[in-house]
């Protein structure tokens, strides 16, 4: 970490660490104080406690671990006295942050990531910049994180109840999850989603992989035009695709009903699956083409040389190598369909209601906290998908790295 900075000059204790700690304490104390109704007291007490803490830790507790643990324990006890269990939890958090800040300042760690010749202004700007980035990351992740605990709310509220804040077990329950898994309003859409998305994925992956292989050949007439057409479902805004499909698919449905004698329900599923399949195709094309760019063509020639037919070559040589790309393309197609609401809203009928559709109506009309439970399940689901895609990407890179170029 500190390569190139062999000696970081220790900052002055009274001129730097203690005053800055006091400022930090001032802010924290104000926050806690206002919440308790005594902002002025909080302000002064916070500043004094923090300054003292900074002095003590910097001068007498050189071992970081002991110092941070000790501060956290003391703060937890103080918090517990003030506000029970939740106070203790907040105390631990505040204690850890404040003690980290104290060591960060007093040991000169705050300079460790800037060149040794940086001026004080540089260091200040650098750390402010990091703080800003941290806040932006917080902005990115906070809404998703907030939803998770709220989904365990025992009340039908969309905010933290006092019981939840006090970590009272009474304040938490699984009732929204029970509702999600038992209420037909939610189970039917869930089932529909799991019918429609895999079927759409199969169509887009099988057709898309074939086409991507075709596109990767060296002589394809009109490649750019074909590519533009195949990518177009991703380019055109969903609302426009939905509008076009709304008109055309209703005609298609009437035709199928009149001439093929299929049931309306079945036709509805066919329409939605076709619409979702075409929306997923660009993702398959893009990922599989990207994998094929690095594909070593001499492998197929070698296979042909040893007497394998084109089909055998495809399944035994080419497919295993491009499989990671195909699977991640498939995952993209799956999530596109699984997450899609505009097109299904226009093309489908009530019996094809999917999970996002139900969430959309839920959010627009009768806002029910079950949505938060659904959201949590879906976030977990997307974490699993994200991990899979990442692992596949690494595997694909490794496989491609192995093949001679």
């Amino acid at each position, binding site marked *: 970490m500190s390569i190139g900075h062999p000696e970081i000059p220790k900052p002055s204790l009274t001129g730097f660490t203690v005053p800055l700690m006091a400022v930090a304490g001032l802010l924290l104390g104000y926050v806690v104080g206002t919440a308790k109704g005594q902002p002025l007291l909080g302000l002064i007490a916070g500043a004094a406690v923090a300054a003292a803490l900074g002095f003590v830790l910097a001068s007498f507790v050189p071992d970081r671990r002991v110092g941070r643990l000790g501060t956290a324990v003391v703060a937890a006890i103080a918090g517990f006295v003030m506000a029970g269990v939740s106070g203790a939890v907040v105390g631990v958090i505040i204690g850890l942050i404040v003690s980290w800040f104290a060591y960060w300042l007093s040991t000169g760690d705050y300079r460790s990531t800037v060149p040794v010749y940086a001026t004080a202004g540089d260091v200040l700007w650098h750390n402010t910049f990091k703080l800003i980035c941290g806040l932006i990351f917080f902005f990115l992740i906070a809404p998703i994180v907030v939803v998770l605990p709220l989904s365990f709310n025992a009340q039908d509220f969309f905010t933290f109840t006092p019981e939840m804040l006090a970590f009272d077990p009474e304040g938490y329950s699984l009732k929204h999850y029970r509702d999600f898994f038992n209420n037909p309003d939610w189970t039917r859409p869930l089932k529909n989603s799991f019918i429609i998305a895999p079927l759409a994925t199969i169509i887009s992956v099988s057709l898309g992989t074939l086409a991507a292989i075709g596109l990767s050949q060296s002589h394809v007439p009109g490649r750019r035009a074909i590519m533009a057409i195949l990518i177009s479902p991703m380019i055109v805004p969903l609302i426009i695709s939905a*509008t076009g499909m709304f008109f055309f698919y209703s005609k298609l449905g009437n035709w199928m009903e009149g001439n093929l004698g299929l049931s309306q329900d079945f036709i509805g599923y066919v329409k939605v699956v076709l619409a979702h399949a075409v929306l997923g195709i660009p993702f398959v094309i893009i990922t599989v083409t990207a994998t094929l760019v690095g594909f070593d063509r001499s492998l197929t020639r070698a296979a042909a040389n040893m007497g394998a037919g084109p089909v055998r070559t495809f399944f035994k040589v080419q497919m295993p190598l491009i499989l990671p790309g195909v699977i991640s393309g498939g995952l993209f197609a799956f999530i596109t369909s699984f997450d899609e609401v505009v097109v299904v809203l226009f093309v489908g009928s009530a019996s094809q209601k999917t999970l996002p559709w139900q969430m959309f109506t839920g959010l627009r009309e009768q806002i029910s906290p079950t949505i938060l439970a659904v959201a949590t399940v879906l976030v977990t689901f997307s974490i699993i998908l994200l991990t899979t895609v990442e692992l596949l990407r690494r595997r694909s890179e490794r496989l491609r790295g192995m093949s001679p170029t």
Partner: protein
Amino acid sequence: MSDTTDTGPMRAADGTPLKKSLARALRRQKLRALALIAPLLFFVLVTFVVPIADMLFRSVENQIVSDTLPHTVRLLSSWDSSTGEAPDEPVYAALAVDFQAAAEEKNHTKLGTRLNYENPGLSSMFRKTGRGADDIGKASAKRLTELDPAWKDGATWAALLGSDDWLANMAEWSKDDGRQPRFSARAEATSALPLTSDVYTAFARVVRTEDKKSAVETKPWPVLYTALEQDLATASPEALAAVGGPSAGLLQAAGAAVPGFEPISYKQAFVDMDKGWGEVDSWQTIQSYAARYTPGYFLNAVDLEKSPDGIQQRPEQQQIYLMLFWRTIWMSMLITFCCLLLGYPVAWILANLRASTANVLMILVLLPFWTSLLVRTSAWKVMLQQQGVINDILVWLGLVDDASRLVLINNQFGTIVAMTHILLPFMILPLYSVMKTIPPSYLRAAKSLGATNWTAFWRVYFPQSVPGIGAGSILCYILAIGYYITPELVGGTQGVFISNRIAFHISSSLNWGLAAALGTILLGAVLLLYYVYDKIVGIDNVKLG
């Protein structure tokens, strides 16, 4: 291998010239590639490109007027609306036939709805008229059946207007045989009684396909009597005499009697049903929208309308689309700018940290990217509500009074915050991939040459990151202007986009032509932006994840 000095063309193993053999191999390769692409291309064309083309067509298509009121429209084309007088009697006579026929097929309400978009009030006029239109025909029917009760009979009409073949087929047909024979008209009857023949063809079609009954046995529509009376009044005796078949005698008798009937004032009849029929205004609308293709929807989409004096602005209170387009454009710009403002530092720090740390932080960017759109939208709904998390924290901190909680949602602020959050990964990822290629040594070199931090950034680093800014901004902008779900859920009335209006016209107001026209304009804008994107980044360089 061979050491002969062969001066002829090089040959492949099977003896064909090498050039030819190679060309054949190349052709085969091309065909194979195309054969692999063809199924998908066909699939995308049928399920996506054709629907979009259908939408484009729908935005100008306007056949309903001339299909529903064919005779009226033809006569109306010579009417001069600037005289300030409603059209003459013949137009109303044609309308009497067209309108009754339309009412029998329930098409008059559709037409009323269509014309209502251009001239509010016509819908109710059409509906009202549809209820009483039969009376006109019934008056004629009474006079003709008094002349000869045979006119009451479906068989009389069938014999008069159907061809001999059709009559013979119908005689053999019974209900259990399944499909009825298709109607074919008697040629002399078509030339002698054009209106009646037209109406009877429609009658036979409806009876055959919808009622699934025999036209010969079905009671004729009243409109047939109106049409016949009009035809007989104008037909020459020779033409009538030429009509053969079993009903020839009846027809000639009627042809002799009809000129003696007291003429019906169709105009009076229509004006009695609804005053609107006597007004120039209603007729102007019908005349303006009589063409099979109309720019009317597009004009409507930009707050204009077609009037007798040319194209002009809609009334003030009906102008919403330009404002919505404008709002969509500037709010998308604002959102793109917010994304850039927040995305630039994050992309910078991701590109300049050690790989292991950057990978961990990258998860924070990718997780929202992979999370369901509705989950993120619902999260913002939870956060921004008046009883939501942000307001609660502000109240807890004492920054905001409990009674005056901030309104953060169902306005433009809500849309901007939520959409910035949703589109931010689309800005960070392209920026990151560009910044990753900028060597950090450039900045150090600039500084060692005496540049200040700001100069080094602004003159050295920033210009190199511009391609990333361009790519990310255009991507965000394109995504933003077509967004529907998030503005619908968190935008209230002030924060919605043009796409919400399109959805409204599709599902609520059912003005599909206008929805198609709005969609076409939006599509044009997006394609234009994509053209720019292609020039800057290249469509092939789109990467995911």
